[in-house]
């Protein structure tokens, strides 16, 4: 899973490109314009490498941290069907992290370093996972709608220019289709179930709506401009485009289930064909991104603890097995 909006801060374009060989740069841009993929051993501008590492790394972190809010519901999933599906779903997310760390490693940053930066708070992950999953219904809303949002982002990014990232995303998107189906089914069962179940799922949707709107990042008019990243096919769509696409695909499906979206202003403008909505609180978004959300500390603490508990294992497997020395005589 992965949300936009926090990937491309601190662009210092003029300075970043002044050391690049203009001819190599022109060839590189021409290849991308022709729709070719850039591979790990190909020449690339330092800025391209840096932004891709940042983006893929954040995406990988989002998968591994994203496993936590739903992961806590595996041991409580109601019934065999849900228990097995949720185990498989969260396992996929960990697998996505593995794939993405490997893709980022092709650009020169080792997995250990990336995880270290995650734990130290140096590198970010999708903001949405800093919110708690209070009930089973929250976990189903995550599986359906957070994954739906992630698919919108990931499908766009899979058309990007960096080969290893695109290939990882192709595999990830295939699995996400199953997540979406699982999440949708679970939400359908709740919203067509008993009064208690309907109440649970509506409450969960109310809690997750703002984080979902935040998920795609700040409105384009508030974002730093990223033309060069668009030209290099690093950034494939804008935050508003992704948000509009999500609303277009999922608001009707949510309404179909008889659920109420907690935004009285949400409607599609038939003339512009765009969704209109109340701007979510972007100050809250900034606060949470900067570490002050309901679960930031807990999420990082869980990850840090897992790293500490597993350190002896990683140390042991780095050590080659010693063959007993056979005396020569």
């Amino acid at each position, binding site marked *: 899973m992965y949300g936009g909006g926090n990937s491309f801060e601190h662009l210092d374009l003029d300075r970043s490109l002044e050391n690049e060989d203009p001819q190599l740069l022109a060839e590189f841009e021409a290849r991308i314009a022709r729709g070719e993929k850039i591979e790990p051993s190909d020449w690339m501008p330092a800025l391209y490498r840096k932004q891709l590492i940042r983006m893929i790394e954040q995406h990988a972190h989002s998968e*591994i941290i994203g*496993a*936590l809010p739903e*992961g806590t*519901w*595996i*041991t*409580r*999933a*109601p*019934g*065999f069907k*849900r*228990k*097995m599906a949720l*185990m*498989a779903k*969260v*396992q996929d997310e*960990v*697998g996505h*992290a*593995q794939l993405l*760390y490997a893709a980022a490693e092709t650009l020169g940053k080792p997995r250990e370093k990336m995880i270290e930066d995650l734990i130290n708070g140096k590198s970010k992950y999708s903001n949405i996972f800093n919110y708690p999953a209070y009930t*089973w219904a929250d976990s189903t809303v995550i599986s359906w709608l957070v994954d739906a949002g992630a698919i919108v982002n990931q499908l766009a990014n899979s058309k990007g220019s960096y080969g290893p990232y695109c290939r990882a995303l192709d595999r990830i998107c295939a699995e996400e289709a199953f997540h979406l189906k699982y999440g949708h089914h*679970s939400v359908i*069962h*709740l919203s067509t*179930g*008993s009064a*208690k*179940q309907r109440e649970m799922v509506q409450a969960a949707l109310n809690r997750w709506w703002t984080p979902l709107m935040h998920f795609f990042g700040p409105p384009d008019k508030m974002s730093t401009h990223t033309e060069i990243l668009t030209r290099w096919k690093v950034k494939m769509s804008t935050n508003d485009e992704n948000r509009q696409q999500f609303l277009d695909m999922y608001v009707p499906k949510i309404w179909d289930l008889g659920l109420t979206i907690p935004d009285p202003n949400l409607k599609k403008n038939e003339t512009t064909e765009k969704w209109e909505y109340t701007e979510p609180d972007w100050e809250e978004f900034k606060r949470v991104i900067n570490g002050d959300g309901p679960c930031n500390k807990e999420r990082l603490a*869980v990850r840090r*603890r*897992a790293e500490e*508990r*597993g*350190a*002896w*294992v*990683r*140390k*042991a*497997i780095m*050590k080659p*097995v*010693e063959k007993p020395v056979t005396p020569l005589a």
Partner: protein
Amino acid sequence: MNQLAIKELLYKIADDQLILGHRNSEWTGVGPTLEEDIAFSSMAQDKVGQSLAFYKLLHNMGENDPDTVAFMRNAEQFHNCQLVELPSGEYDFSLIRHFLFDFAESARFRRLSESSVKDIADVANKLKGEIKYHTMHANIWIKKLGNATDESIERLQSALNYAFPYALGIFEKSPFETDLIENGVFVGEAQLQEEWLEEVQNVINQTQLILPTVTDEEIKYGGRIGKHTNHLQPLLTEMSEVFKIDPTAEW
């Protein structure tokens, strides 16, 4: 053939798998490496899936449906051995438990695939293939960590010392033991334990670990007749927390 005897046999297999699968799933998202995180989840899924196959056999014999059986019973109604209900602890214990248990299960399925009860033989035959990957996984890791650093060897040894009396409890005899053996349903726990011990010893011999000696009194029996450690009920309470909000609802 005594149906109760067969049911008892199926319940202990299914309950072992469900509870261990549940425990192994606790590693999801927090494993020592991403690869092990994924491996433990795969094994957890296999275990829970396999338990479902056995609960379905029981359902065909007139027991309640699998969800009700798994999510609505109390600890005293579970037939699993105590080994599987112990908290997952650190990776050293989880790995040792997986090693000890899965070798026992692999021996059990191998023997059950020759059972005179065709339904049981069919399921066992199918699961024999799945469990092969679990024992392979355990093998690789025990050999690796059992020969690596002082810390990894020490950790595995103390986990082994702790787990071994519980592992022997896997082979607690059923009240219907002779019945099962005489009717060719199952070769019996004593024979199974012997085969298991040989395989386990063989792997341990390739490491710097030592299999502890355990007296009969130290063996942790009781699980098969519903006597459990105080770790099982909290696990079941957690597992059924959502299900019990409305057991008649579809989730």
